[in-house]
């Protein structure tokens, strides 16, 4: 709708686009610059975590005002129990749990947790990284709500959780092959094949080659 396409970063709304020295894909957002987005923000949760578990934290980054803490896998339950039960943090709710797949990394999967403190309004993104074949610790002992989320992560990415009471597929059928959210899983199948199975006489018109039942 707005100005588009004709090369070059558009002049930004508000803050102004940052000029050059940035790695490969040039961001074109019209919004804040990288510095502003990745700026460190004071966070009580991170402070407490750093002081209580100095050796469990691998990495702390910030994006858009939200701290992202990477925790060592074997310390996860400890850290999470602390987050949940510490009176100062009191993150009683696990809002979300999801996995992400990075096939080129040595530790292929990331599990991303979003604990949430209803009393204090804290929020933080917590991550662990695990390699393929490795088992992640299950949080079902800490939060009941982790149950289905972990089943979903297993279903979609094939991450196994140690200590999960019922680690079965949840969204896909039990006889499904593969884990769809892995990057090597194809996005597109061929729905036409199914059409052929149903009606052998039906020839799908191929829109891309213009092979149509009429002259366009």
């Amino acid at each position, binding site marked *: *709708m707005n100005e*588009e396409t004709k090369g070059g970063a558009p002049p930004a709304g508000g803050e102004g686009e940052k000029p050059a020295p940035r790695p490969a894909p040039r961001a074109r957002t019209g919004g804040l610059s990288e510095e502003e987005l990745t700026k460190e923000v004071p966070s009580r949760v991170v402070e407490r975590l750093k002081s209580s578990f100095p050796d469990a934290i691998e990495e702390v980054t910030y994006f858009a005002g939200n701290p992202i803490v990477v925790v060592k896998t074997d310390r996860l339950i400890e850290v999470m129990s602390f987050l949940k039960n510490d009176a100062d943090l009191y993150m009683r709710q696990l809002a979300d749990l999801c996995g992400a797949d990075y096939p080129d990394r040595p530790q292929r999967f990331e599990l991303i947790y979003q604990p949430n403190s209803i009393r204090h309004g804290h929020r933080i993104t917590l991550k662990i990284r695990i390699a393929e074949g490795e088992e992640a610790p299950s949080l079902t002992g800490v939060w009941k709500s982790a149950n289905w989320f972990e089943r979903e992560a297993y279903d979609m990415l094939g991450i196994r959780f140690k200590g999960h009471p019922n680690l079965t597929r949840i969204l896909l059928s039990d006889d499904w092959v593969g884990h769809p959210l892995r990057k090597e899983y194809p996005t597109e199948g061929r729905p036409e094949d199914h059409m052929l199975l149903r009606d052998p006489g*039906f020839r*799908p*018109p191929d*829109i*891309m080659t*213009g092979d*149509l*039942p*009429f*002259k*366009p």
Partner: protein
Amino acid sequence: MTNRIWGFIKSVLLIELLIGLSVTLRNQFRPHTTVEYPRETPNLKPRFRGIPRLRKNPETGEDLCVGCLLCEKACPDDCIKVVPEKRPDGKGKQAAKFIINYERCCFCGLCVDPCPTKPLTAIYMSHDFELASESRTKFYYPMNNLYEGAQIKEYSR
């Protein structure tokens, strides 16, 4: 105490049930809200998004489409295919083939946003929405039919 007595009387007299009954009885005499659809045509608002169609310049009758492929790129469902060609007069391009696969279209209107022929966009969301058809091939249109509105209505009776 009086409250409790009053409450008891109320509950014996079924007051709240009678109030409920009065609501339904009152509504019996209100005008109905049914739209008897195939008999009455629904009142479509100007911005209603029906199936996307192509449009000619209403003054000159020329094709508005300049074959820029922006709609093809913007479509989340991959349902538009445009084959551009040079215009006969040599100025710019036009669409030689313009195919919309209505089987896949999700009526989102994202193809209209980037269309460069402002203010009258070449592709627009028409008010036609009666798409049911007996054959899948009917969902692929010859380009000529894309220009005409209200084509697909096929049912009878």
